[in-house]
């Protein structure tokens, strides 16, 4: 039995590695993507432009404007003279935010009244715009604290009364928070790609029937298809891990062994789902589309781009059946937190369950489909 499995594994590996293009897309490009996308996966707001309409001639408004100009958040600060120009700049997407200072700004401040500052944000990208709004209110807050304190109206007022400390990622390094999720996503992509086509390709070319009439049992075919995919994806994953830690300098606080153990279970779940989709499909095209039908929602629901906490409860329940969700939590835990083993186990057993169910249904489908 093991000899038959060995033969099948070797054949699968040869089929994958002999083709130069396949080697490229499966082994080289995913680690390369990790490098590129770790810089892209940021929801920070930087280097944006700000449009300012200052209709006030006083000193206070000029002081505030110079604070905006000095802020590193804005790469350019553009001054306009009329409100119509603000409308045009925001409408045509030239700027995410615009500030309008009215002509009575300085005089109101001098009288000790509250002066209004109009802030206009582009709702087409409201998430980024609101983060930017947060930065702008910090600038205005500092202006309030420091400048107004010098005037005769100053009373002992509250200053920045909150200090924040960030655990696990003290400098708010976005690469640190991006890499664990990206790693989980890319490992899944490789696992899905190599497993989902393996059976569909044989079906399309008619060689799967030959496998079925050979002395191989469905279990042996399953093992013979799973092991090569696991090996290829693990190599690719190890390369990504190496780049993440050595080149991108992401810390690895937890245990490497634990990470590899969890990755193996994760990949078994992914490959099981891939093989299941593959054995449902008659052609490679169907397998790829079936894969997308699963993969895209699964990645969106994994907490990769938007937090799971934002989802309604019923959807949060659904995310528990998604191996990517669990592995992202494990990765964030092991990379950044040195999370205790019990927490890992919490996310490990659902993946074990998923892999058992998906692998056995795939094996069951091998035989079923032919009849």
């Amino acid at each position, binding site marked *: 039995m093991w000899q038959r499995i060995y033969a099948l594994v070797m054949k699968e590996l040869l089929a994958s590695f002999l083709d130069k*293009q396949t080697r490229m*897309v499966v082994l080289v490009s995913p680690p390369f993507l990790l490098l590129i*996308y770790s810089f892209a*996966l940021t*929801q920070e*707001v930087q*280097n944006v432009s700000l449009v300012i309409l200052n209709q006030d001639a006083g000193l206070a408004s000029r002081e505030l404007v110079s604070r905006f100009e000095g802020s590193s958040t804005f*790469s350019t600060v553009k001054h306009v003279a009329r409100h119509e120009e603000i409308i045009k700049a925001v*409408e*045509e*997407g030239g700027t995410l935010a615009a500030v309008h200072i009215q002509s009575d700004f300085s005089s109101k401040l001098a009288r000790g009244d*509250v002066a*209004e*500052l*109009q802030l*206009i*944000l*582009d*709702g*087409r990208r*409201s*998430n980024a*715009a609101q983060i930017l*709004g947060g930065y*702008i209110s910090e600038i*205005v807050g500092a202006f309030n604290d420091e400048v*107004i304190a010098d005037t005769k109206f*100053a009373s*002992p007022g*509250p*200053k*920045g*009364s909150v200090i*924040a400390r*960030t*655990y696990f990622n003290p400098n*708010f390094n976005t690469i640190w*928070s991006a890499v664990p999720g990206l790693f989980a996503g890319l490992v899944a992509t490789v696992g899905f*790609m190599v497993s989902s086509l393996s059976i569909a390709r044989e079906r*399309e070319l008619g060689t799967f029937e030959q496998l079925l009439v050979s002395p191989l049992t469905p279990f042996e075919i399953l093992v013979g298809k799973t092991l090569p995919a696991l090996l290829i994806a693990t190599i690719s994953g190890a390369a990504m891990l190496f780049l993440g830690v050595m080149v991108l300098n992401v810390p690895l606080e937890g245990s490497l062994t634990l990470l590899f153990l969890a990755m193996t279970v994760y990949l078994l779940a992914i490959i099981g789902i891939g093989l299941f989709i593959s054995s449902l499909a008659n052609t*490679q*095209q*169907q397998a*790829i*589309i079936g894969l*997308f*039908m699963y993969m*895209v*929602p699964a990645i*969106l629901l994994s907490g990769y*781009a938007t*937090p799971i906490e*934002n*989802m*309604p409860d019923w*959807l949060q329940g659904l995310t528990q059946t998604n191996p990517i969700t669990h592995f992202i*939590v494990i990765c964030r*835990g092991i990379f950044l937190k040195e999370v*205790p083993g019990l*927490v890992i186990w919490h996310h490990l057993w659902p993946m074990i369950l998923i892999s058992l169910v998906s692998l056995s249904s795939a094996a069951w489908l091998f035989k079923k489909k032919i009849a």
Partner: protein
Amino acid sequence: MRQSISRIQALSLKESAQVMRDPSSLIIAVILPLTLLFLFGYGVTFDPRFYKVGLIIEQPTPETGSFETALRSSRYFRVSKSRDLRTLEMKLVAGSIKGIVVLRSDFSRNAFAGNEAPIQVLVDGSDANSAELIQNYVRALSLSWLEQEYLKTGETFPERVRIEQRIWYNAEASSKNYLVPGSVAIIMTMIGTLLTSLVIVREWERGTMEALLTTPISASEFLIGKTIPYFVLGMISMGLSVGVAIFLFDVPFRGSIAMLTLTSSVFMWASLALGLFISTLASSQLVAAQVAILSAFLPAFYFSNFVFEIDSMPVPLQWVSYFVPAKYYVSSLQTLFLVGDVPRLIGQNTAILFVIAMLLFAATSVRTRMTLE
């Protein structure tokens, strides 16, 4: 000329029949778009519901009590109180809470004095987006709490410049309103680039390309005949998605249908052209699919301002984004939905898409082999 048209027609008909017969076409054109819209419409959102945070009060006073009430009544937080920082830190490590708010023992003394920071916020930096939002919310909450406290004592709150914030085009700042239009671009990329690249590689892989080569069909006739059915499929899918977005998810649509159709057709051509170009490079469907994912699907996701901010990326990556068709289309879609026909912006986007499409078609025509080597 007439013969040419009839050849194109014959190929298109054959291709359409193939599309109609394959259930996977239905999946990619109808079910996948609906699933994506459904997810972005209901679940996948940047709008926070609430964050679970821990609260530690080192020394209870009337002031800490009123702050706790303010924190608990905020719709952004679910508060669990504890005496011990260690327990909460363990929960933070396990990920069951996202932040810890600590009111120091000198809270009551310092809250109004303005010389020291009496509130500490400890956040989980492994989830940077949530961490930043929690900080912002606690900061905003503490300011409004202070204002309330000042009102109670009858003093005026020493704030001087007040920000009046307006969010144009999307007053309720609902991320659904821009994620749903953006997902239309992802859907069309998948049909145009992924599906199309697979189709031609399949002809080579199965050997039916040789059969086509023996016919009088020319390279450009082949390309046109092949793409028409997928163009129609993509446009149907676009229409369906836009309809669902407007009528089911209440995303406002302020532009004109004519402008939407025009800019979508040009984007669809660009996507198809990229798909065709990939098919001339790839030797197997596995490779074609992977290249389509890498060069079209992922860039449409990352480099289009759909979820991630291009402005914040390093400059070389910003340069990459200029070559991503989805970037221009997402911008047009978000504008058409939320702002209206902004002729200069949409015209410019569409013109760039047109140039990209033409370049890709030219490259494809050069590379398409109508002979056996």
